């Protein structure tokens, strides 16, 4: 006997994500989901970002990690509320994990929530969290072929941070071709070239965030 089904595999997560989204909207809270390979520099970018933002925006952070709380401890030192989510093996955060972590925050008094997803170029992008904006962090040392190899993340992201540009001279990366490939996949994406080590380019990126926060809270 043939049974017709037609049900989305991610439907459960999608429903949880849209519940999260309603909650975020109700509190006028902008939520950014940062994704990228292990070691791309997500936490370092975030640390630099917090130091610039902390005087003008009320922000909080959720750190996703498979087992450890190392990144959350790094963020804590910068003086913002942070929650650690350990996925216990899973390669991505999902909407229900976020929902649980939200109970720890005073949402009414936060304008911006930044979520650092588990380090992985493939899986996290498939699982919506209810965020307003997805951001990809790609370090140029990973090679300029990554966008076309992992197009979905670059397609879904509103901004791409090309990190570690201080190392440009030590790589064979063709920046023009890297930018071209990203824009091919996503013509409307904003690209930021930064060094989270030196702080170069962080200001432009932070201005972009502030603009997005204003758009959401106004």
């Amino acid at each position, binding site marked *: 006997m*043939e049974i017709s089904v037609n*049900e989305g595999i991610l439907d459960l997560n999608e429903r949880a994500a849209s519940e999260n989204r309603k909650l975020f909207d109700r509190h006028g809270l902008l939520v950014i989901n940062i994704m990228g390979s292990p070691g791309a520099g997500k936490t370092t970018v975030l640390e630099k970002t917090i130091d610039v933002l902390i005087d003008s925006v009320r922000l909080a952070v959720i750190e996703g990690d498979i087992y450890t709380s190392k990144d959350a401890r790094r963020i804590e030192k910068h003086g913002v509320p942070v929650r650690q989510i350990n996925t216990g093996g899973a390669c991505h955060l999902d909407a229900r994990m976020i929902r649980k972590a939200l109970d720890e925050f005073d949402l009414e008094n936060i304008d911006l929530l930044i979520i650092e997803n588990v380090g992985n170029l493939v899986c996290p992008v498939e699982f919506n969290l209810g965020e307003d904006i997805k951001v990809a962090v790609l370090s140029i040392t990973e090679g300029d072929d990554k966008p076309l190899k992992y197009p979905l993340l670059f397609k879904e992201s509103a901004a791409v941070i090309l990190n570690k540009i201080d190392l440009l001279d030590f790589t064979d990366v063709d920046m023009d071709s890297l930018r071209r490939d990203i824009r091919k996949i996503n013509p409307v994406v904003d690209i930021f070239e930064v060094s989270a080590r030196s702080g170069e380019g962080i200001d432009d990126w932070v201005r972009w965030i502030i603009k997005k926060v204003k758009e959401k809270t106004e």
Partner: protein
Amino acid sequence: MHELALMAGVFDIVKKYTAELPDKKVTRVTLVVGELTNAVPEALESSFQVYAKGTNVEGAELIVRRIPLTALCVECRWEGKVEEYTFICPKCSGLGLEIKTGRELYVESMEVE
């Protein structure tokens, strides 16, 4: 390797549809998977085996129907296959390509006996 997580979703759906058919065996599950998803068919197959083991789905055939990435140009109404993930209209060079197919990720049907 999030195919295991995806397969958990597949089996939730399969269970729901076989809950009222306890003495039935599932003999085939058909998934529809778009080109612009991060689900790898081979990994889906091995995750399927893991989940099926010891259940009424063990031994069932998994069919993965792949859907190509296609888009519609909002400016000139061109519609066709997106090559190499290039979201630039091949006809008018417009940047407003809307995805039509290629993001599917669902259980289409099952066969039980």
